[in-house]
């Protein structure tokens, strides 16, 4: 191509590659293999909200001002979820997966990419309702320390509680959600007893390894931000982390059929994207 003819779009793509390389080399956060389309969108938002003209300017600031990295991570990682998001998923966990989990004397559950904790609290409450909490250790991991701190606090705006409560009921909840939180100053604080069996930890599906043997892994709407190669890495990590016949739950619109590990899993509840590790 004629070097003088390169358009703004192509220049921007080069800048984005360089920015992600800078983020990795300087701070070891690796977004280089994230799915491009939404990443680009979020980087544009970050650039515009920081009032910077180009990604090159953002790169310059990122390299020299460490405070920029947590701001950038908030654009790149923080997702707002709900308690019992997609109630049918939790109903399937309760009705189809829990009967299998009951047969184990002790259980390990991994909420991978836990963000601000909504998925985690949903599982702990469900396990308490099903009488499994006391034999379970929950691992809640994320790459964003601010999100992990928020998850460990378990405080959500009160205006979200109505949705949480409806979801909980549709999921087949056996108790009242209000048993698990107290309210003050427009917020609902989830009870600290729900965190007694939880280990919060910084862990990256992109760069870190297997750390324990799990009976159930829930990782919903996290891998949608990865490209195909990175999704394969994460699914491989899940495969390596699961006990024999362990379960993997994905988001409603995620599928293992495009994965190189498709053959390593069977569809356990097809419509809810709950898979079971299959052994040769």
């Amino acid at each position, binding site marked *: 191509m004629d070097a003088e003819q390169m358009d703004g779009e192509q220049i921007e793509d080069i800048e984005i590659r360089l920015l992600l390389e800078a983020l990795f080399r300087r701070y070891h956060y690796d977004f280089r293999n994230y799915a491009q*389309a939404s990443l680009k969108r979020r980087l544009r938002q970050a650039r515009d909200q920081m009032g910077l003209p180009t990604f090159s300017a953002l790169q310059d600031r990122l390299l020299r001002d460490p405070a920029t990295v947590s701001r950038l991570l908030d654009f790149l990682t923080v997702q707002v979820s709900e308690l019992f998001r997609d109630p049918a998923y939790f109903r399937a966990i309760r009705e189809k997966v829990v009967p299998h989990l009951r047969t184990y004397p002790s259980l390990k559950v991994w909420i991978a990419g836990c963000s601000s904790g909504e998925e985690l609290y949903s599982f702990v409450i469900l396990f308490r309702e099903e009488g499994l909490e006391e034999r379970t250790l929950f691992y809640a991991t994320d790459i964003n320390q601010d999100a992990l701190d928020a998850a460990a606090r378990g405080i959500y705006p009160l205006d979200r509680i109505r949705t949480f409560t409806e979801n909980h009921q549709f999921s087949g909840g056996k108790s009242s959600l209000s048993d698990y939180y107290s309210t003050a100053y427009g917020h609902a604080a989830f009870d600290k007893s729900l965190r007694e069996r939880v280990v919060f930890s910084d862990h990256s599906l992109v760069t870190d390894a297997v750390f324990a043997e799990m009976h159930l892994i829930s990782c919903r709407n996290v891998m949608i931000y990865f490209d195909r190669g990175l999704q394969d890495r994460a699914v491989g990590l899940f495969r390596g982390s699961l006990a024999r016949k362990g379960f993997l739950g994905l988001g409603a*619109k995620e599928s293992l059929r495009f994965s190189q590990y498709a053959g390593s899993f069977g569809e356990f509840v097809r419509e809810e994207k709950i898979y079971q590790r299959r052994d040769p």
Partner: protein
Amino acid sequence: MTRPRAVVIGASAGAVQALSRLLPILPGDYPLPVLVVVHVPPGRRNVLASLFAAKCNLEVREPDDKEPIAPGTILFAPPDYHMLVETDRTVSLSVEGPVQFSRPSIDVLFESAADAYGSGLVGAVLTGANHDGAEGLRALFEAGGTALVEDPASAAYPVMPRAALAFVPGAESVPLDALAKRLLDLAG
């Protein structure tokens, strides 16, 4: 101009009636993929896809993340997800916050598709009562794509087509009943 390789459509209020007068007319050998965002509340899955699958000659469904975009398929954005196009012509989904109060957002689909297909993209903004789609259509137009807008005079809710025309004065305004023929002509 590049020969079109994909069609993107955005609609909001009045969408089901408008799309019912458009999508079922596309023949079973229509060569382009058609990606559609309709503003729907979060909740039940596959409602629009099953409704239109029964009416259309083309295959209609909600895609899974990373699904390859195949010609002659109509893909509806799943409720509560943004639908985007990657440069390798696969779908990616996202649960980032709503854009213009909407998830899925028409702007998000159009902007990412404009990146992926450049001048090989046809986009149409149909009936609606908000301003979603205007910025996306501008991105599409600036990338050299073909920008179509439902003629506000024929639209059930003209606010969205008007906003799109105000943002993209170079867009073609097409009456709803002429739109299917236009999409066929553009597919060549």
